[in-house]
């Protein structure tokens, strides 16, 4: 039996430590992992818990991230609670197996500490890895600070393992900005946390010898499509379970999470939409600019990136009848397109009552800092669009990049 870990009511944890504590408290059966910056401490801490008797499950050191996720798939198909952690290049190497995990409906929990993708090689935080996995069929939750990294990792087990869902779940946090920044965190005691997560209920497990099953079958054009349709529906329908789990978590802890977080949107004239730690920067900047300049700025933050909260994004956009302009912040090199968040938010906003002007910023690549002054400049620019009644700049721009001004496409509505 695993030893209880003594925890204070308030601890001083960085995002990595918070995530590793949540994995420990969930009493994962198998962690198969390969360490990579900046998520290394999650794996390292977990190994220490295991070595010191705080974990009953197995810790498997593998030869690569492809092996890590493959080990997780095997262990999950066998019938265990399974989790791992990765970042960036490791995430990229896992990608093939991410699709296997979701298609096989295995509720693996993956804590992702977001980092840029090479080339050029870079260990700092941006959302390239998150975007790489966005079509992989996983539920994607996004933590903006250490407390949330802990809370959402616990919730991830409940969501993914729910019998109506049975899908793998990623919990993202920003590399270094969140993963290496120690903050006050209120953890649950071991017993309370485990009770919230609950015992693992195996489904179609290979270790059930009374009912032999085949996992990972091949299907061609006569079956594949139906399976993918069923999988997509499960992912879309998981919205309800995510809402329920977050509600249960609020009842237990008083900490409230929603699939889309909104801040000061009730009377907002312009809004900024972002992911990760930039959400807190944006809230801080919005409060300041409201006080200093009377500019009514709100913040919208998708807590759940997949399934994409098409419903709640529209609710957020229609929350204020005065909303005129929205800027979508994409922290990933767009590779010859508009940013993914911009595209998806624009599609949702097209069928709202407000149909605000929407522009796109690429920002913060490779860990480039996104500061309060730049956030406020962007907010003022949205106000200029709102006042003019049309987009006054290029639709896609780059924030915080050196060199001549860089932007693409202009509006045809004036």
């Amino acid at each position: 039996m695993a030893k209880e870990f003594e925890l204070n009511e308030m601890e001083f944890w960085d995002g990595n430590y918070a995530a590793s504590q949540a994995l420990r408290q969930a009493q994962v059966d198998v962690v198969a992992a390969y360490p990579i910056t900046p998520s290394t401490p999650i794996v390292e801490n977990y190994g220490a818990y295991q070595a010191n008797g705080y974990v009953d499950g197995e810790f498997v050191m593998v030869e690569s991230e492809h092996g890590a996720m493959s080990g997780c798939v095997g262990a999950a198909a066998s019938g265990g609670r399974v989790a791992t952690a990765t970042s960036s290049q490791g995430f990229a190497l896992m990608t093939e197996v991410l699709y296997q995990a979701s298609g096989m409906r295995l509720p693996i929990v993956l804590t992702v500490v977001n980092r840029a993708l090479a080339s050029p090689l870079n260990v700092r935080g941006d959302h390239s890895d998150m975007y790489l996995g966005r079509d992989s069929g996983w539920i994607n939750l996004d933590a903006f600070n250490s407390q949330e990294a802990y809370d959402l990792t616990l919730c991830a087990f409940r969501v993914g393992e729910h019998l109506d869902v049975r899908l793998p779940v990623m919990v993202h946090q920003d590399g270094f900005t969140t993963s290496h920044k120690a903050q006050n965190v209120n953890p649950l005691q071991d017993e309370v946390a485990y009770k919230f997560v609950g015992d693992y209920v195996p489904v179609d497990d290979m270790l059930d010898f009374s009912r032999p099953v085949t996992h990972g079958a091949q299907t061609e054009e006569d079956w594949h499509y139906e399976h993918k349709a069923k999988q997509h529906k499960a992912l879309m329908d998981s919205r309800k379970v995510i809402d329920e789990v977050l509600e249960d978590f609020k009842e237990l802890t008083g900490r409230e999470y929603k699939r889309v977080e909104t801040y000061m949107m009730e009377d907002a004239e312009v809004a900024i939409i972002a992911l990760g730690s930039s959400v807190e920067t944006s809230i801080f900047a919005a409060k300041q600019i409201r006080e200093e300049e009377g500019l009514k700025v709100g913040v919208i933050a998708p807590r759940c990136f997949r399934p994409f909260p098409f419903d709640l994004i529209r609710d957020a956009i229609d929350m204020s009848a005065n909303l005129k302009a929205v800027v979508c912040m994409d922290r990933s090199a767009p590779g010859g397109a508009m940013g993914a968040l911009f595209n998806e938010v624009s599609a949702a906003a097209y069928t709202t009552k407000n149909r605000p002007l929407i522009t796109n910023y690429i920002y913060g690549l490779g860990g480039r800092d996104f500061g309060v002054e730049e956030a406020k400049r962007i907010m003022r620019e949205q106000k200029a669009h709102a006042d003019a009644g049309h987009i006054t700049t290029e639709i896609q721009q780059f924030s915080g990049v050196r060199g001549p001004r860089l932007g693409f496409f202009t509006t045809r509505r004036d």
Partner: protein
Amino acid sequence: MSKGLDGTNKRGILELGAEEKKGWDEVPQGVVLNSFDGSIDNTAFLKPEDREYSEFNSYIASVASWRVIKPVYNRDICIDCQNCWVWCPDTSIISRDKQMLGIDYDHCKGCGVCVEVCPTNPKSLLMFEEATNNDDALAGWPEKKKKAKK
């Protein structure tokens, strides 16, 4: 042709792709397929023909449609050494009580391993074009090869 060799009437009865097509709401979650219908008590001790394989078990399906050459078995020469049974990668050599019965043409892919490992002279298994009639193949079976004189 070989069906019934082992007394079964279920092996290879379903052509691959001929199974009943179901909608997205009916396919099993995660493409997990049952190997057997009903209880599997004692199944490990039953011969394949006595097991309750499910519709999606490959035993029921014929999965040999892409074979282009096939092994033909000659009972008159075979010494029942079981070499082919041991080596066959698709468990397509049917043998009962250490006696070779023939080829499972519903699962054999025509790899020719059985012919390679057959120790008799002439061989008791030889590869032929898929369309060749087995009786014709047997009628033209080669004679025993004599050792070359020193």
